[in-house]
């Protein structure tokens, strides 16, 4: 007995999540690049493109609900569909964070740069890689890769703290920098949150693959 239609539906769900993941990863990249290269039109496109992500989010939720209602999924199918709904929400939030970054970029671009941007692009590279690997882990049900994503969250957090510390000294030395420094701090905070969302996705992948809930249990995260 094979459930061809159900199987095709699940594959379509995975594909939609991958599409969504690709979109939000690209938005994060474009928003940070808009800031680095001072391109207002790119930042504006990130903001305008959020509607597309929102629509995809609703389509994915609708598919999940329909599958739950009509297919009564069990075991790994049940874990896949319920976790997909959570991954979907995390991806949409990453899209929102990309919009926040683009908005901060729009306020920063017209002003003279505070300092050369080094940590922000590094954070972006790390966060984008976390999203990509969390989704690769999702596609391959690869709990080991998902655990690797969990470990990398600390690097992003450390960079955010570094940005905070550094910009604090700028603000104390010259109150005229406060507005720009706060915008950069907000961006580092947005990127740190993106890392957290990627972490959530990685936790969901471990649940799908191993039926283990590793949230809120740092000691179990490394696996057996």
């Amino acid at each position, binding site marked *: *007995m*094979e*459930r061809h239609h*159900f199987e095709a539906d699940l594959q379509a769900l995975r594909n939609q999540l991958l599409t969504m993941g690709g979109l939000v990863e690209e938005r994060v990249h474009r928003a940070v690049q808009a800031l680095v290269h001072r391109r207002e039109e790119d930042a504006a496109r990130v903001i305008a493109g959020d509607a597309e992500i929102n629509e995809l989010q609703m389509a994915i939720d609708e598919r999940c609900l329909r599958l739950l209602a009509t297919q*009564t*999924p*069990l*075991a*790994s*199918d*049940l*874990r896949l569909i319920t976790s997909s709904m959570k991954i979907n929400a995390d991806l949409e939030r990453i899209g929102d964070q990309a919009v926040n970054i683009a908005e901060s970029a729009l306020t920063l671009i017209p002003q003279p740069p505070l300092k050369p941007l080094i940590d922000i692009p590094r954070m972006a590279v790390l966060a984008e890689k976390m999203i990509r690997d969390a989704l690769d882990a999702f596609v391959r049900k690869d709990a080991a890769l998902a655990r690797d994503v969990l470990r990398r969250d600390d690097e992003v957090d450390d960079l955010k703290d570094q940005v905070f510390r550094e910009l604090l000294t700028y603000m104390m030395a010259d109150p005229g920098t406060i507005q720009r420094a706060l915008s950069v701090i907000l961006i580092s905070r947005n990127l740190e949150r993106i890392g957290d969302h990627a972490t959530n996705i990685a936790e969901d992948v471990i649940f799908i693959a191993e*039926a283990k809930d590793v949230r809120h249990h740092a000691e179990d995260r490394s696996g057996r």
Partner: protein
Amino acid sequence: MAEQQSSTTPGDPGLRIHTELPTRPAEAAAPAGPPDIVCSSVNLAYGDNHVLHDISLEIATRRATAFIGPSGCGKSTLLRCFNRMNDLIDAVRIWGGIRVKGLDINAHTTDVIEVRRRIGMVFQKSNPFPKSIYENVVYGLRIAGVNDRATLDEAAERSLRGAALWDEVKDRLQESGLGLSGGQMQRLCIARAIAVEPEIILMDEPCSALDPIATLKIEELIYELKERYTIVIVTHNLQQAARVSDSTAFFWLGKLVEFASTADVFTAPREKLTEDYITGRFG
């Protein structure tokens, strides 16, 4: 009989009232003593056809245990071992141990009639006798020699209430049991089973011939019955097993593949075979 009834009512209700978290009723109560049924390496063969292979499992007291698996996996055969219904089949050989409340039910000294009184059974197709509703319910008691009208009346009402049928039939107890709807007939059979105060109720596909509403009533009833009785239910309906049972055993080609809490079996089965079966990817 009435005294025996109250003695089988599970523990101190006060314990449960103080359970603050909204757990499922199944999880609210602590296990009610040692397992009712203990199978150790049970094997069964019809002639050369070896049907059950080394089945070892324990059926928890006052819990609902579901047997699932594809047709021919042996789940109904094992169920019928518990009250020696397989005795009726020629050339059947059973070896290994089956103990019900410590009693070796296959021992020569064991009284089969007594085994079947203690272990009631409800079948796929409801089988009321061509008698009145009342006489259907008290049939087992009359066979056992009870003729006192008051005792029979009391047992009939208690059993029909226990089977959630009383309100629907109390004004027509003398009408034929065959005039009831399918779902009512099945509940009548449950009332007949519980009238003789069994300890265990075996159900073999009790809802497969019923519509969804009648099925729902039986499932609600199983929830109530397991407060007082140990239930073993064979079902092809996986959602039904998921809804009503506390533990689920999955059988495949006469072997017990997996036996665990129902929540675990349906969300995170350990065995690939179980996973493939319940997600519909067999073959």
